[in-house]
């Protein structure tokens, strides 16, 4: 099917004969020449580094606030409208503000990514913490388990599957934001590369860049699923046990 899609593209582009739509074979050939070059790998590494930094910072903030909001009703009610407003703000809307405060460099880009990543993680953390069974909660308070210990031994593990689901949503949003922040800022990166090639009318290269971006997203997703299976093995095991 995948190969089929390429064949359709090839034939369609061949019939169209437009310089806007290069044939699949040409794009693939260009992509093949491109990927081992040092310059290109640097761009990819640059994108990945931003993504990793923004993702970790955003996820940490999201989990921290999510834990507070999940465990305390007062905090939840007090912060809800603020969070809802901030969450509804498309990250691009804060780019101009960040450009002015942080400049065009890396910190601006990382901040944009962290902002976008934070909210899905936060929402899912709250949901996850709230789904802790009342029995576990009551047992803990009956046994006088301290607050910190309760958070780390009960709430966090119980919320983990939900948090991981949020992280996965955040990962794809993060990839979008990498591209956006590269459009806006200076320095390299895959998004920057695509825009550059379009500006130079180098369309096969532009398509190849998009192709690599798709591959990158696909690869990251696979990696994530692998890590998820590792980290949540106990959860799937228990869920499977119950199903049986």
């Amino acid at each position: 099917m995948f190969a089929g899609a390429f064949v359709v593209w090839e034939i369609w582009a061949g019939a169209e004969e437009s310089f806007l739509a290069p044939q699949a074979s040409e794009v693939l050939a260009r992509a093949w020449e491109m990927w081992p070059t040092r310059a290109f790998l640097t761009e990819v590494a640059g994108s990945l580094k931003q993504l990793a930094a923004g993702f970790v910072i955003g996820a940490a903030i999201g989990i921290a606030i999510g834990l507070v909001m999940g465990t305390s009703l007062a905090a939840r009610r007090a912060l809800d409208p603020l969070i809802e407003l901030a969450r509804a703000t498309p990250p691009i809307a804060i780019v101009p503000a960040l450009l002015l405060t942080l400049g065009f460099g890396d910190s601006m880009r990382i901040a944009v990514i962290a902002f976008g990543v934070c909210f899905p993680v936060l929402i899912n953390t709250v949901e996850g913490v709230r789904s802790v069974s009342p029995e576990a909660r009551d047992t803990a308070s009956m046994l006088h388990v301290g607050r910190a210990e309760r958070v780390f031994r009960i709430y966090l593990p119980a919320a983990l599957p939900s948090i991981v689901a949020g992280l996965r949503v955040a990962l794809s949003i993060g990839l979008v934001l990498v591209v956006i922040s590269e459009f806006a800022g200076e320095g390299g990166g895959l998004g920057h590369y695509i825009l550059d090639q379009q500006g130079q009318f180098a369309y096969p290269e532009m398509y190849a860049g998009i192709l690599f971006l798709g591959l990158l997203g696909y690869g990251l997703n696979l990696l994530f699923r692998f890590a998820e299976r590792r980290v949540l093995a106990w959860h799937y095991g228990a869920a499977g046990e119950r199903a049986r």
Partner: protein
Amino acid sequence: MQRLLRLGKRVNVRGWLVVVLVALLAEVAIQLFELHDSVSPPSETLPALGEGISSGELLGALRTTLEAYLGGLALAIVVGVLFGVLIGSSRLLLDASFVVLEFLRPIPAVALIPLAFLFFGTGTEMRRYIVAYAAVWPILVNTLYGVRGSDRILHEVALASGVSRLGRLVRVTLPAALPSIATGIRVSASIGLLVAVTAEFFFGSAGIGAYMHRQQLAFQLPEMYAAVLLTALLGYTVNVALRLTERRVIHWSGEERFRWP
């Protein structure tokens, strides 16, 4: 009177007070530390917002944005649900399309803006397609899951009772998938808005995003932040509207999912 009281109870007063408090803190911090060069204080942003709305400039931009955004979202809902149901009801189609879907899905829609720009120019049409591309994936995937997760026994009962294929689709599959589809639409709505404003910001000549960009270049900070605020309010409104509609339409799927906060 009683209605007003009830409304007062439903509105989260304390939460909105926190929002006001944060705005006040921002105001004080900006005045104290003289951050006027990079952030405009709320006392200047709000008048700029009012002025932009009363002069019609911001409202015009809002309308342009909404045209592309809602058009694209509608297109995405139609295509996503259609293909989701189609692919979801056939094992063969699911297996065949899986790799293509998994490959196309992670391509960030914003990366396709330069491409769409070549084909459709900078107008509303280009943005509509970009929004549709970005918004279609959550809807498609959620529809898929919803359709596949629908109760097998219900299907078999309907089949045994002689309900036609179309009847089963409308009366068994779709109602079962609807909560999941609604979730997909809600996710898509915020992604679509992000993409619409982004496309305007970098490539558009009209709309809130373009307005924001213009004000940034002109260093008109209050006007720029007014546009940011308007975008946030727009996103918030869309979210609330969707949640209310969902509660109305999908009344059968338990109250559990609506208990937030």
